[in-house]
């Protein structure tokens, strides 16, 4: 059965069992290896992607539920040459250790920052309750998310030049 999926802005016709978890399709059919397989049971968060603005666990989502919906993965946040603000902040603050949990962390944070540009510490922690990190780099992850928020706010403010001419 063919299902059409929109991932990071481009649409794909996927020929697979409709019950196939999104995670498998992302990795095996689309070659998007950012989302990671950790537990396959919805318990670790390493497979987190964003669907229509909300963080979801892609190992738990059969693709039949995604017809007509927007999927964003960590690859959609920027490129190696031009990392997006979240990626930039994680690099800047060296928030990754082994890195396995990081794409999931970033996607949970992405959903949060879209909703709320300046979240409280409590809200950040709340948004990450379903994301585990076995390396224990939590404090840096939290710092990186705060930093990403700053970068995003700075980017959306008028720059000094615009300020003068406008």
């Amino acid at each position: 059965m063919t299902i059409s999926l929109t991932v990071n802005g481009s649409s794909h016709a996927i020929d697979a069992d409709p019950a196939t978890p999104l995670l498998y399709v992302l990795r095996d059919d689309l070659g998007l290896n950012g989302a990671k397989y950790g537990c396959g049971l919805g318990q670790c968060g390493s497979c987190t992607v964003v669907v229509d603005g909300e963080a979801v666990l892609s190992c738990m989502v059969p693709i039949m539920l995604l017809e007509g919906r927007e999927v964003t993965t960590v690859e959609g946040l920027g490129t190696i040459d031009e990392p997006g603000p979240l990626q930039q902040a994680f690099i800047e603050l060296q928030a990754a250790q082994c890195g396995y949990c990081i794409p999931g962390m970033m996607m949970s944070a992405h959903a949060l920052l879209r909703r709320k540009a300046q979240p409280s510490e409590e809200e950040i922690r709340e948004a990450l309750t379903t994301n585990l990190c076995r390396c224990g780099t939590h404090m840096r992850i939290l710092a990186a998310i705060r930093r990403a928020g700053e970068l995003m706010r700075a980017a959306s403010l008028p720059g000094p030049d615009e300020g003068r001419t406008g």
Partner: protein
Amino acid sequence: MWALKAAIVFVAAIFLAAGAFLVFAWRSEIPEDATAGEASFAPELVARGAQLAAVGNCIACHTVPGKPAFSGGLAVPTPFGTIYSTNITPDRDTGIGGWNEAAFERAMREGVDRAGNHLYPAFPYDHFTRVTAQDNRALYAFLMTRAAVKAEATENELPFPLEFRPLLAGWKLLFLRQGEVEPEAARSEEWNRGRYLVEGLGHCGACHTPRNAFGAEDRDRHFGGGEAEGWQAYAINPDSKAPIPWDEQSLAFYLRNGWHEFHGVSRGPMAEVTGNLSLLPDSDIAAIATYVVSVMGDPTPERAQRAAELREQFEADRLEQTADSQSSVALASGGQAGETLYLAACANCHQGARRQPFGGLNFELSTAVNAPNPQNIVNVVLFGLPPADGEASAVMPAFRHILSDQQLADLLAYMRESFSDEPAWSGLVEQVANTRSGAYKVTIRPSDGIERAPHNVGAEEE
């Protein structure tokens, strides 16, 4: 002339009746005791009070999660309006710092505060009235030795005329039976201890017994199933829908650990209850289980037969579970919408090899699927079971961003049809929509109950 006389008599009669009622409803003030807050108590008494407060689950209503323990302010939604819990820390101005022991005991016994105001039965004095003077003393000692917190109680939001407290005297006349109950000589000491804890301080019936139009427990349907904070509190009498009936061992295990392999994990407000009960000695847990199981009674022969089969099936399963039992389920998709969804999204965990409390419960064993109202499944699927903070716990992901109202309704219909012999549920799409929108209010708690979460200030004060 005649008409005027009649009118005068009529009006006079109304005033007399109203006056008589007010006299009847009036309670004296117990003078403030300025030194009550400074009293000291034997450490053993305070320790016993802590255990009793855990049985009473006092902290759950009298604490806003994240705020200081027992300082009140939690909104308790009732069908009549919203009631805010009060500050029961020993702060003199805003708490119970000026209450002597007699004032505390009167509140527990009669539902009257120190100043003589009738209290709303959201404070379950219809149960607390059964608590012995000795246990009240321990509770008092425990509460008076907590940190005093200045926190003014929020005004209740009740429609006219319910904010007029003397009316509660009428409610009490109808529904409050004051005082302790005599032990039943024919029953064991353990059973009597269990009944004392369950019917008194434990106030299990406050959630598990349905309420009448006046918000009082319907005594004829004792433990027949009720609701709390948007969750169904299942029937725990002969109407219990547990596919494998509870027995003393399984219930004691569940109350002690918050889960049982044949019944699943406690959640919603029950998660707090099982969490609090961890403070109790095994003997009290066993007593509670003994009493509650006696209320449930022996299962019918058909139910016992079915339970024996299930037990065998799940005990055998456990022995021969293999790693591939997960994948074999998910591949068999096809059929109607609900079935496809179930196989794709639920079966991996709920028919997988992982055991309780970390795997999903097999729905063949689920009380929820057999309950008259699917609310608990709706809650858990939409909002998940958030993990406990800083410790291993049961967890389930939330599906609210993935499933539409219709899809969840299809899923519920399929589960009911496949895992239960009970009649189909109705109005599912609307029920899901109202739960999702918040029109129907549901409290979501981590699987261990929030008061014990490390970031909760209340937990640190214990």
